[in-house]
């Protein structure tokens, strides 16, 4: 592995994104618009909005980075550039870490804007302060990137890649405790939600929103999200083949 090559890949991916102004604008603005919309949905129930908004901050980065990464890496796989890179003196992990770093940075910028808006303009109160919220958002972005990278191996075209969001991410959203608290769901569903990584990103957000102090549970949830991200990243690098049969 080489730090220089990881950073070069990170810069390259960020440049690709930065040339695409429309995508950049969508990544940053869509969560902001959706949260504002939700604020008015809960117009007479600010208490409820206050409960839901932080959880969404743990879901949005994961969703968006999953989409962006799965398409970007699918393009890399199909355009011949991956073919080329695999004949280069480059470790597969250089490529994969470069991607993860780039999209985590984008996730961080997205989190800064979204959190700023939620706390500043939408009057959401978070007991634990902004730091755990930002860290969790970046971890969620990282997890989304890693999952997207891994899943892109199973899509033959962009159409399939986009559709994979539904079977892979939607069940995680339905069961993560956003709609019904996890311990109130049927036992099998609760167990299922235990193995979904998104659950821990949402739990971490809840911890940060409700506890004025940094709890052990918060740290544990963050580490689980990080661990799942790393695992998916390694699996993703295995799906990249030096040699094709």
């Amino acid at each position, binding site marked *: 592995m080489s730090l220089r*090559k990881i950073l070069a890949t990170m810069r390259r991916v960020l440049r690709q994104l930065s040339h695409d102004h429309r995508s950049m604008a969508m990544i940053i603005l869509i969560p902001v618009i959706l949260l504002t919309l939700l604020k008015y949905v809960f117009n007479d129930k600010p208490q409820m909005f206050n409960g839901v908004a932080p959880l969404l901050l743990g879901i949005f980065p994961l969703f968006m980075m999953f989409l962006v990464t799965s398409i970007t890496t699918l393009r890399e796989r199909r355009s011949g550039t991956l073919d080329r890179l695999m004949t280069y003196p480059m470790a597969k992990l*250089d490529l994969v870490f470069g991607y993860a770093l780039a999209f985590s940075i984008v996730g961080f910028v997205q989190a800064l804007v979204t959190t700023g808006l939620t706390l500043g303009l939408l009057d959401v109160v978070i007991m634990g302060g902004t730091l755990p919220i930002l860290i969790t958002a970046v971890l969620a972005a990282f997890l989304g990137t890693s999952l997207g990278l891994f899943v892109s191996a199973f899509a033959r075209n962009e159409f399939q890649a986009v559709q994979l969001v539904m079977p892979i991410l939607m069940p995680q959203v339905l069961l993560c405790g956003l709609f019904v608290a996890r311990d109130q769901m049927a036992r099998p569903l609760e167990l299922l939600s235990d193995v979904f990584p998104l659950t821990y990103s949402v739990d971490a957000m809840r911890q940060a929103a409700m506890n004025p102090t940094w709890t052990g549970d918060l740290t544990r949830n963050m580490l689980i999200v990080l661990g799942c991200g790393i695992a998916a990243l390694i699996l993703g690098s295995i799906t990249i083949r*030096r040699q094709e049969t």
Partner: protein
Amino acid sequence: MFGAILWTMSETAVKIQNVSVTLGKHFEALRNVNVELPVGKVVGFIGPSGAGKTTLMRSIVGRQKLHQGKITIFGNPAGTSKLRDQISYMTQEPSVYTDLTVRENLVYFATVFGVPKHEVAKAVDDILQTVDLTPQSSQLVEDVSGGQKQRVSLAIALIGRPKLMVLDEPTVGLDPVLRDQLWNLFRKLAQQGTTLIISSHVMDEAERCEDLLLIRDGKILAHASPKDICKQTATSSVEQAFLKLVGKQ
């Protein structure tokens, strides 16, 4: 001096022994190929599309798994990490990042190839000049013409002065003037000791190579210089020679 010439002539860049590759379940893309390619020559892989040229190239650069046989490059098995900074591969479709500028593409690939940091800018400038893309350097690749895209892809293959360059149809679709320029470049590189493997399905390109492989149905029909191939088949052009060889089968 004579001895030195003999020595260079006998040096082998690529040694292919009993190589067979099956694609999918049944398609035999390569059938028991045996070839030795010399160092410092422009070697042409000539044959109709679907003949196995690309599969042979992918096997040489180590991207294709062999189902039988072995390939040695400068004494090392194809695909080993040791070879990765000695060879370059240009795929048939331009494999470039279309959402980056021409220069950004080159800088990235140069960095990944391991060109030292302080040499990257100069190396990229030189290569841009070589492939005549300096005026387009800050344009996005998706905004340049098809032929220019092709040249960006070729430019990437020139990065880091690899000892072996494997170029899949590098001049197809380019205008005659540019094609001529590039062939001069290929010859110059070969004189400096680079081994170039260039595929084409256009027979007039074959005449420009020093060493030729006529390929069809995954098999090597002939391997010699264009002159010798014509002599052996008693024809006056590689195209005629090819047709004659195919007819004989």
